[in-house]
């Protein structure tokens, strides 16, 4: 989670539209003068604010506004950390998430009724050294990502400890951690709580244990929460995470005891993002003041050239000259007026754009892989824009699109051929597209309409690409639109980091990416339409041949060789409708899509485009094996719950029905169940090395 704005800003700040007043600083001493009060009176009130007080007051800023969102936030913080840690250590992440209902008052309520949950997140990352564990999990504002400008999910050093604090405040239970830094190291088990007065960890338990995992970290939190599927649920968040992070293998044990596996379908780690220094254009005045105080440089020009990127010593001297300050003066001595002049000068000086190689995009192939894995569609495409810069911050926009229903799903409703009465038509389809948004690979589930990504989707003229769209609305049809912004600094509209702010440069990049996706979709739709019209022609004939032959037979007094006549007529039909040419247009001859880079097309005959990628997804999906439950927990106390959940799981698995599937978040709003494909354990392991071919190619029927 990119939580930069949440608290004091160590990095360039860029919320152009603050919806929340100045962020409340979690300074240990809050000396805020209040009007019409004397200094003495004030002094009497000035005291340290305990972190728990701060937390309670600002829980909405951190994502703990209500029990349902809090549950999601806890999962999110732990998973973000796991992924960050694995990626930084160069390990392909294997992450397990488990939600369990905690019995209250002697009974175990159903997941939808429950108010208390145990969240366990385990990774195969680098682990955490023993001494650091207590502070990481029980000290707010402690972390490794805060003091750098580098693209990562987490930033503040507050995420997991805030989640622990939330658990502690709502259930009184400590955070339990198991961590092991390698197969040769021992595993440590910790139970920690936060001293809410001092913001210091309290260690309840600390021992070495046997742990089946060779390496990694496991966090267990007990929190008050509410589990409800659907929009903005844990399930949705995990599924969307898996779309944008196909290099992650994610196993999710739901509170109902089901195990969903999102397999790894992309076997390369994203390139490690590089750390950069802030660009002078990207900082605010207050930030400059802070940097002047904190710098290790002894001269102003040294400060400018070493603490910022793209400022050479010559340029630094030039800036000082223009601002009429001495380049050799101590940064700390620059007083406010001069500092302001310096700030203005910097903004007016022509400075090269920041380097952009610090951004690690998901990449077209990986996006395709993720979309193809989770969404059952007909057409997929992905676009990664070249890096761009807004206010001195480099960023990359990526967009993707999954469109349509799989051929096997298309025919389903058609099988019911209801005779139509005079004047009866077919009902209109009013399904709208769905937008899934990401910032630094993390799904954004709230505040969609305030987000510039969403606005860009609305303002794109989808009609140009053969898709319906009412004014000011989302495009129509079975479609998922994927938008991702990767940046060292994602500008959220507010501290709750749910929507991306409207910067022209960002808006432009999103629009360009969406247009390219749309253009490709249009191409696909036109191609499909062309093929379909040929197909329909042949189909009409096939349909009518039956009728004509039957009528002829009756006219001939029932003495006709019907099959022979049918065969003859069919042959004529094929030769009249372009024969091979149609097969080609229909994609039956295996030639790839033209003019459609980074795309996958699924037809009733197979897959085209990035076939290898699709095959990989299919193979990985088919090869999923049940997670090894026994490995999860080494601690006895904990494994009690685990056994129980296993038993429940076994029971539930037996009657796994399509409803459980449908209850999963549906990417396609209405036709929910067809839109996604959470791969579960115990699926019959088929062995396709090729993409699976939908089986209905046999009897295509005319669609009216």
């Amino acid at each position, binding site marked *: 989670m990119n939580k930069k704005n949440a608290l004091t800003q160590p990095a360039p700040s860029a919320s152009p539209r603050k919806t929340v007043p100045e962020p409340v600083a979690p300074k240990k001493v809050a000396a805020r003068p209040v009007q019409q009060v004397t200094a003495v009176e004030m002094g009497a009130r000035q005291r340290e604010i305990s972190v728990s007080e701060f937390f309670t007051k600002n829980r909405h800023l951190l994502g703990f506004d209500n029990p349902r969102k809090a549950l999601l936030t806890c999962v999110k913080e732990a998973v973000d950390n796991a992924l960050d840690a694995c990626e930084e250590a160069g390990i392909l992440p294997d992450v397990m998430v488990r939600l369990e209902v905690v019995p209250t008052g002697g009974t175990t309520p159903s997941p939808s009724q429950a108010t208390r949950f145990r969240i366990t997140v385990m990774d195969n990352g680098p682990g955490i050294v023993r001494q650091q564990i207590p502070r990481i999990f029980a000290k707010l504002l402690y972390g490794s990502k805060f003091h750098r400008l580098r693209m990562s999910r987490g930033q503040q050093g507050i995420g997991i400890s805030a989640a622990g604090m939330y658990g502690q405040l709502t259930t009184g239970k400590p955070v339990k951690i198991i961590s092991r830094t390698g197969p040769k190291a021992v595993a440590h088990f910790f139970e920690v709580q936060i001293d809410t007065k001092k913001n210091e960890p309290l260690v309840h338990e600390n021992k070495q244990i046997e742990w089946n995992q060779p390496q990694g970290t496991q966090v267990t939190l007990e929190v008050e929460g509410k589990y409800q599927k659907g929009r903005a649920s844990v399930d949705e968040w995990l599924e969307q995470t898996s779309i944008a992070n196909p290099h992650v293998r994610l196993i999710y044990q739901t509170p109902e005891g089901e195990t969903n596996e999102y397999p790894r379908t992309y076997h390369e780690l994203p390139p490690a993002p590089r750390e950069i220094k802030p660009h002078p254009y990207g900082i605010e005045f207050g930030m400059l003041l802070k940097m002047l105080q904190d710098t290790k440089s002894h001269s102003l020009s040294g400060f400018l050239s070493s603490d910022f990127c793209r400022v050479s010593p010559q340029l630094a001297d030039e800036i000082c000259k223009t601002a009429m300050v001495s380049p050799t003066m101590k940064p700390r001595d620059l007083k406010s007026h001069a500092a302001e002049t310096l700030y203005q000068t910097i903004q007016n000086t022509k400075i090269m754009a920041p380097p952009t190689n610090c951004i690690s995009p998901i990449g077209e192939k990986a996006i395709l892989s993720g979309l193809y894995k989770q969404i059952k569609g007909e057409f997929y495409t992905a676009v990664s824009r070249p890096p761009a810069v807004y206010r001195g911050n480099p960023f990359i926009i990526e967009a993707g699109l999954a469109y349509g229903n799989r051929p096997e799903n298309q025919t389903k409703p*058609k099988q019911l*051929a*209801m*005779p*139509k009465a*005079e004047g009866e038509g*077919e009902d209109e389809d009013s399904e709208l597209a769905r937008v899934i948004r990401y910032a630094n690979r993390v799904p954004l589930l709230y505040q969609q309409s305030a987000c510039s990504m969403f606005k860009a989707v609305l303002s794109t003229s989808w009609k140009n690409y053969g898709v319906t769209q009412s004014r000011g609305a989302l495009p129509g049809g079975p479609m998922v639109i994927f938008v991702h912004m990767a940046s060292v600094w994602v500008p959220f509209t507010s501290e709750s980091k749910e929507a991306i702010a409207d910067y022209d440069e960002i808006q432009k990049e999103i629009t360009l990416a969406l247009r390219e996706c749309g253009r490709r979709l249009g191409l696909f739709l036109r191609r499909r339409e062309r093929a379909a019209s040929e197909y329909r*022609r042949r189909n*009409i*004939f096939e*349909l*009518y041949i*039956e*009728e*004509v032959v039957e*009528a*002829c*037979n*009756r*006219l*001939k007094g029932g003495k*006709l060789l019907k099959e022979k*006549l049918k065969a*003859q*007529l069919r*042959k*004529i*039909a094929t*030769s*009249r409708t372009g024969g091979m040419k149609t097969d080609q247009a229909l994609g039956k001859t295996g030639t790839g899509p033209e003019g459609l880079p980074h795309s996958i097309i699924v037809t009733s005959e197979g897959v085209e485009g990035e076939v290898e990628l699709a095959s990989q997804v299919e193979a990985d999906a088919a090869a999923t094996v049940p997670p090894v439950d026994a490995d999860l927990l080494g601690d006895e106390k904990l494994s009690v719950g685990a056994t129980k959940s296993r038993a429940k799981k076994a029971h539930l698995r037996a009657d796994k029905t399509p409803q459980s599937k449908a209850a999963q978040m549906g990417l396609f709003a209405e036709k929910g169940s067809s839109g996604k494909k959470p791969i579960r354990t115990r699926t019959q392991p088929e062995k396709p090395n090729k993409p699976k071919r939908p089986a209905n190619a046999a*009897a295509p*029927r*005319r669609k*009216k």
Partner: protein
Amino acid sequence: MTTKQIKTTAVENKLIGLADIVITAAERSKDPTIAIPIRALSNVAFNERKGLIEMGNKKQARSFFNVGMAKKFMQTVLVADALFELQRADLTTSLREIYYRTKHTIQDSHENTFDTQDESDPVIEDLEVSLGALREELHVRAENSGSIVGPVVFGDDGDRVDCARLGKGGYSVPSIVEPEYLEVRRCTADFLLLVEKGTQWNRLSEDKFWRRYNCVLLTGNGQPPRGVRRLARRLHEEYKLPVYVLVDNDPWGYYIYSVIKQGSINLAFESQRMAIPKAKFMGLSSADPERYGLPRNVGIKLNEKDIARAKELMNYQWFQKPAWQVEIKRMLTSGLKYELDALANKDFQYLTKKYLPRKLKEKDWLD
């Protein structure tokens, strides 16, 4: 009865011929195609010598393996099948029943063979023209919507029908009046008056106009159906009855007269058997309001459609006679049309007692 037997067999053979077209084409890997004479103004000619509208030779190919025609082709074969069934069972039926008989949902689809009767009616006409078989021969009948009264005796299914003894209601003209269905046993009338509107026919029948003037009164309640036209033609042909037409004075009235006289564009091929080139236009003429002193206030203003239609009629070859050009122009100049009913303005029995007697006396009609 023997004639009937031979005829139906001929029709049956024509229908079977359609199946043969499909089978033969399939054998030769050719697209099965039916040639259908075009039923439009572009394919009719007015034969001045005969005084008939005749169908030209232009045909349109209806092919199976053509996306635009495939469905029509299929429908044509289906209708042929249904007509064949009628022949076999020796039944007659209506257009609507043919529609229902041939309508079904095509297997494994949402598609109906026919969605509305508007699709099946023209297919029947297509078959009539392309097979050269009359609708009656195909056993398809229209509504019985005509009436006849007067000194004429029919044999209908063995029953003797004396139209002079049927009161003022008369005899309801069947839709099929071919000799094998309707026999004209006797006719002693001097002429035949074909009245457009049932109301005027009722007036004349009630007033026993036919007795006084020894004529046959016939009506088709608007545009006369085929049975009425065909019956008029038979009486005209078989009993040499002169035929007079009495219609409203509006473009539609002129048109009805022209269909009775020369035949229609749509079914020009039937003119041979239906048209009565010697039929005369008795009225209402655009000259009548003045001649009979009808006040202007019983006229109706011509609407745009009327005007356009009148101008169109003036261009038809069969309205080129100077008298007709004058007739239509006079209507356009006056800007008014008159209904026959307007004669009641003068007297309820004006039509019976004054108008027609004077017309007949003055031989005041148009040809």
